């Protein structure tokens, strides 16, 4: 039986679903801030119907695990968890930043990519990737949240993707010989299925109840009581 991956992402303003089979990839991508929860499951239903499949035909559920909007990431993880638990399927966590690197390869053939998502509060989520001969991405600068002014990238020449480079263009584009992608601003499930298929073959899966968002930003917006820090 060939591998069939269903990917779901709601980590950013984009809401997307993709279904990879041996024959084809069916996908949906919409930029719909605040409406992901309403569209995600209908989109899943649509791609399954279009591929003439049911959930039980799927091999694994991939999900955008973040970083991104906290609530958005949880909607994506939650919908994916319900599907995976319900259909007894393994889950494949995929980084929203790595998905954009894959997008840069798909669109531009880029092999050196810096991805940055506008993280609000004057910061970006960012990571730097180098594509290997195997098609895997080596992470040169691991995912982190930082002020764009403080960013130091391991690559001086790269294709740069994501809303971070749009919001902080003046600051970030001065940090190297960068080619800014006008195609890849947000992560897409279409690129997540490609990554997830690779991870799935290598056994890098989790059970539904173990699937967790990766927030990256962990402690900024709330403060403990004095003496409890």
């Amino acid at each position, binding site marked *: 039986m060939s591998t069939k991956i269903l990917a779901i992402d709601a980590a950013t303003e984009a809401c997307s679903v993709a279904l990879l089979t041996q024959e084809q990839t069916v996908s949906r991508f919409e930029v719909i801030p605040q409406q992901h*929860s309403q569209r995600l499951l209908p989109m899943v239903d649509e791609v399954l119907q279009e591929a003439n499949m049911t959930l039980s035909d799927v091999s694994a559920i991939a999900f955008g695990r973040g970083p991104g909007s906290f*609530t958005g990431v949880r909607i994506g993880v939650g919908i994916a968890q319900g599907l995976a*638990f319900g259909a007894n399927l393994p889950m494949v966590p995929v980084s929203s930043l790595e998905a954009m690197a894959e997008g840069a390869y798909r669109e531009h053939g880029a092999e050196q990519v810096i991805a940055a998502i506008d993280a609000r509060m004057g910061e970006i989520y960012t990571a730097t990737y180098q594509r290997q001969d195997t098609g895997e991405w080596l992470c040169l600068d691991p995912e982190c949240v930082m002020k764009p002014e403080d960013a130091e990238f391991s690559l001086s020449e790269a294709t740069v993707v994501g809303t971070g480079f749009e919001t902080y263009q003046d600051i970030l584009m001065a940090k190297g010989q960068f080619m800014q992608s006008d195609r890849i601003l947000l992560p897409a499930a279409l690129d997540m299925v490609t990554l997830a298929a690779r991870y799935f073959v290598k056994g890098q899966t989790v059970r539904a109840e173990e699937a*967790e968002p990766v927030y990256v930003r962990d402690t900024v917006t709330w403060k403990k009581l004095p003496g409890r820090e």
Partner: protein
Amino acid sequence: MRVLGIETSCDETGVAIYSEAEGLLAHQLYSQVKLHADYGGVVPELASRDHIRKTLPLIQAALKEANLSHTDLDGIAFTQGPGLVGALLAGSSIARSLAYAWKLPAVGVHHMEGHLLAPMLEDTKPEFPFLALLVSGGHTMMVAVKAIGEYEILGESIDDAAGEAFDKTAKLLGLDYPGGPLLAKIATQGTEGRFKFPRPMTDRPGLDFSFSGLKTFAANTIAKEGDDLQTQADIALAFEQAVVDTLAIKCKRALEQTKMKRLVIAGGVSANQRLREQLAVMMEKLNGKVFYPRTAFCTDNGAMIAYAGLARLKAGQTLDLAVKARPRWPINELPPL
């Protein structure tokens, strides 16, 4: 008909299975109280993060407790609102997609309808119609209940909810969050009659409540009298008496106004012992009867959601695939069965 109920509107993850024929088959709860205690109140983002972690393991545990497989279920009910939007979305997303995967109908439940129907989980259930006083950390509401979904709001708090006033006053007394139950505990050591707190809005007609003034009154009393242990207990007692009296006065007024004989008290504050005792005495005098859920179902839980969801699923009320949280959702906007 058997329904899986999922509650994630605030700081408790609750999952339960209710059967029309067999009653409650499973009841699982994870309370985040300890997590939020360090912050002095519920941190919405942390609550949402915990719900995503806990919901599936609790569903597994509930199925195991009931010794059922998903094929034994006939529907999934989940709290759609009111509550914290992020917390609601965490539970709703999992619940809705799980129902899709299991090919089961799904229904969104109103959290306060869940509370209002919680006494139906007990052996002695109230018959319709009845008067309901819903008192929790987020709500204080007097509702005339003709039937499921036929609610008339007779009065509400114009500021703090009763439970919120308990917690805030407890904080002033230096008690840990959530301090309401701790305040009630130290009140048992209080001296009757040392302090007299006002009974807000009882000197005028109407069924609305106001509790924020009591908190201020407590702060002023602490400033004037100090906060040694005995004074703390005396303030706690006077505060608790004032809240309980106020709730009782309004219940009596509402019963007279509606000519109803049955009173239901639900929500976290309905676990308060002094309130239960005083209302029992009052209802006996009025020749009526008061109904409560067991203590475990006064606070948030999945059982009440499963129960309310079952009633609505039986009436054919289901949701499509769009997940919509309703953080603000007036109870009188609910459809009848």
